[in-house]
């Protein structure tokens, strides 16, 4: 059996021991005498797989952020390829332009017709630049809303894939009303009379993420992050400097992991990733995301629109933590 071999081109430091084992395996398997080393290879494979599981089961919050940003982590365009059929992309916000940082269009997932909306970071250098690395402009949020309303009109469920460091901070984005665009999305999404399911597939950076994530059900992939600010942004403000130490502390303090967000009632589900993260097995990740989406939509489609909107409202209405006067 031909094995693909491990040829990691991008290595996170905490993955180094795994990569070393992979190199040894590659070395043994590559030679003419690979058969002679079958037992050794098998043993190394086992070590690798247990080390991988162990490492990924106990990622620190800051390590999680770095996995969420892994350049090989599947993006919206990958999920479209892996879980959608007959994707019919729809462009433009009818007001200003077409922001490639948010992809929108009709899609079939399994037997279901949906409106798919997702942040796109870009795969090639040119695409990354065009997408501003997943940081959408107001026209991106307006495009998303326009297509959501289209979905509502024809009774299609809406699927949003969240993957952004944050909304783009620039002159044009301010001039064209970044804040207003996001605010309007929050306002309008809260009353869409069609099911909305959202998955944070990578980075859930603040308002730029929430701007397409007011969902009846919000799931997070196991190694995604979702928070009001990036750890570096938080560290730069509260510790006056973002470095490895303060980023670690900030990531911990922000409770940005899927598990913490679930515990805090801010999301509905954690979607497990394949061993070693979505970047090691995009297909496996897409299968899990797809299964979650279809389950949630089926569940939501049984609810009438009035109840759906009311329950969505009540879900977000309940979020917050208060006390009466302290001390």
């Amino acid at each position, binding site marked *: 059996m031909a094995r693909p071999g491990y040829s990691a081109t991008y290595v996170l*430091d905490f993955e180094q021991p795994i990569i070393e084992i992979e190199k040894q395996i590659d070395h043994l398997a590559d030679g003419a005498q690979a058969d002679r080393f079958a037992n050794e290879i098998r043993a190394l494979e086992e070590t690798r797989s247990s080390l991988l599981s162990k490492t990924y089961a106990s990622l620190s919050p800051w390590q999680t952020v770095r996995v969420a940003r892994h350049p090989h982590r599947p993006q919206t365009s990958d999920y479209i390829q892996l879980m959608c059929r007959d994707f019919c992309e729809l462009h433009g916000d009818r007001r200003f332009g077409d922001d490639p940082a948010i992809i929108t269009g009709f899609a079939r997932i399994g037997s279901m017709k949906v409106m798919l909306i997702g942040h796109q970071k870009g795969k090639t250098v040119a695409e990354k630049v065009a997408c501003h690395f997943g940081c959408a402009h107001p026209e991106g949020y307006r495009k998303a809303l326009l297509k959501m309303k289209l979905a509502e009109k024809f009774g299609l469920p809406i699927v949003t894939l969240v993957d952004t460091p944050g909304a783009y901070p620039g002159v044009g*984005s301010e001039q064209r009303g970044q804040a207003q665009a996001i*605010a*309007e999305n929050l306002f309008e999404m809260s009353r869409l009379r069609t099911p909305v399911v959202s998955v944070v597939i990578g980075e859930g950076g603040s308002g730029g993420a929430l701007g397409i994530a007011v969902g009846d059900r919000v799931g997070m992939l196991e190694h995604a992050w979702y928070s009001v600010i990036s750890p570096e942004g938080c560290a730069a403000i509260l510790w006056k400097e973002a470095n490895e130490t303060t980023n670690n502390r900030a990531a911990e303090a922000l409770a940005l992991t899927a598990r913490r967000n679930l515990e805090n009632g*801010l999301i509905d589900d954690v979607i497990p990733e394949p061993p070693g993260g979505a970047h090691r097995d995009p297909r496996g990740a897409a299968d899990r995301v797809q299964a979650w989406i279809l389950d949630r939509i089926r569940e939501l489609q049984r609810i009438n629109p009035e109840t759906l909107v009311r329950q969505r409202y009540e879900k977000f209405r309940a*979020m917050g933590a208060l006390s009466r006067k302290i001390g």
Partner: protein
Amino acid sequence: MNASSQTSGPSAAESAPPPVATAADLSAEANASASVETETKKGVPEGLWIKCPGCAEMEFKKRVEQNLMVCPRCQHHMRVSAARRIEQLLDPGSFDRFNADMAPADPLGFIDTKPYLDRIRDTQKKTGENDAMQTGYGFVKGRRVVLACMDFTFFGGSMGSVVGEKITQAIERAMEKNLPLIIVSCSGGARMQESGYSLMQMAKTSAALARFHEAGGLYISVLADPTTGGVTASFAMLGDVIFAEPKALIGFAGPRVIAQTIRQELPDGFQTSEFLLESGFVDRIVHRKDLRSEISRVIDYANK
């Protein structure tokens, strides 16, 4: 930040983080001022004399106060606390406050260089307030309203669970009693120390406003210096009518974050009220002395 802090390995350069990855949080700038305690006092100095941040002239404090904390020389609108704002906006003695005792919890056990709860207690002691927002009923030139005022002196007016909940309850009361709703925003954005909880207040308040809108309620949003981050990107930009005080800083991302991202100087007057008026995002720029009459006028036009 830099690539090495985030990645290692052969292709780090290829996948270097986006220039905006860290700047991406929009309330960063704003929160910066929120976290610097000396800055929260800016514009509200103590003593007999006041230095105008606009023209840098010293002015007799009494005189500025009588002028609604607007510099008599250059018309600079200084920041005012929620208490003073309420006094300025409402008919004398008409403020009937609710939820005054609502205070922050610390759901995440947030600790940076100091525990969040310690910071809260210190600020509470200093300001005599429980959080960055006062809400209540009152009258503006005889018209009954629900008024919510943000307080920049408390944690830079940042929005955590308390601010979000108070706004939402203010909206609900305005809806229940069919009263006009006025929110005066003055905030650095979402409060970092409550992380995801703060973020979700954006959705919560916006959703409550959607309900209020469907019920035909009138919401006048007043933007004061500064209004940035998650506050701008939620309830502040959702007014039926949006007023801004002159020369207020209003934006999504903070100017420093933007300058870092685009690596060039920002245009003159960028992110001021006047810039927003020109870009089409506020209805009117209103001098502080005219706020009461402008609010009353809109209430009358809306038949509320």
